[in-house]
């Protein structure tokens, strides 16, 4: 009886250890969060957002936002919203469905304010609406 109890204890201990090891492994080697699953910390239009970040633009780098704007041009790799926000797309083939001057809402990750082009840059963008 005593031996059985000990075995049971060992068995559960072993299972717990396995779970701990596995979750540690999963935590250490987890892939970066996908844009689809991350929540936007700002939702609104591009001009409002640019005003909001004007003082400290770099604090917003790598954050996920959802922006609405009018398409001012469509490039090979992304599109320009309101002439001030460049959205690099995750899936370039979606760009062919869009038209200039259309209003669109996208979700993307902020790369940063690019002063070579004087525009805000987002990447991994997906279309929301």
């Amino acid at each position, binding site marked *: 009886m005593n031996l059985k109890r000990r075995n049971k204890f060992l068995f559960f201990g072993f299972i717990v250890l396995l779970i701990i090891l596995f979750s540690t492994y999963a935590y250490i080697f987890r892939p970066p969060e996908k844009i689809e699953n991350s929540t936007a910390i700002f939702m609104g239009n591009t001009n409002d957002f640019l005003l909001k970040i004007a003082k400290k633009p770099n604090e917003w780098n790598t954050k996920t936002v959802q922006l609405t704007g009018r398409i001012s041009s469509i490039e090979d790799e992304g599109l320009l919203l309101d002439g001030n926000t460049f959205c*690099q797309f995750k899936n370039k083939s979606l760009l062919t469905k869009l038209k200039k001057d259309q209003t669109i809402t996208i979700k993307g990750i902020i790369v940063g304010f690019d002063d070579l082009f004087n525009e805000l840059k987002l990447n991994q963008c997906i279309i929301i609406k």
Partner: protein
Amino acid sequence: MNKLLFILLLSTLESVIAQKYFTRNGFTELKASTEAFEPIHATNNSSSAIVTNEGKIASQIFIGAFKFKIALMQEHFNENYMESSTYPKATFKGIIVGFDFSNLTNNKEIKLKGVLTVRGIDKEIESIGVISKTSNSSFRLKANFKVTPQDFKIKIPSVVRKKIAKEVIINIDYELKEKK
């Protein structure tokens, strides 16, 4: 604030007038793997670059946009080593020696010279690259160079020193289009 904006506008205006070829989605790659350990490899396909007709090049890259396969590695890279919240970007300013778009052939070897700024520290870079004409209005620039963490005063704790290569290889692959 307004003054600053004005200066910023002026300086960008200047670069707009002189600019000729550009990319917003250049590919930059970092490799710092050592054998037998987890590969340290990051890619960034949101690099910006402008090349003028005279071969002057200005390139900018956001540290936070480097992607690793492992999130924790990406976090450490940003927080502990590159301190990307303090130094959000790296820049390269220099010249492609002898650049002449009208005389471009395939896989033409060129010399790339300039200053790489990472974490606010400048380092002179000289490297051999390759330029290929991809159309009548675009070309592709490939180059690589080696830097060391010490160049930019990046301290690596002794615990992980063996896992990080002494020399970090930076590969760039940019396709630049004519600005119309």
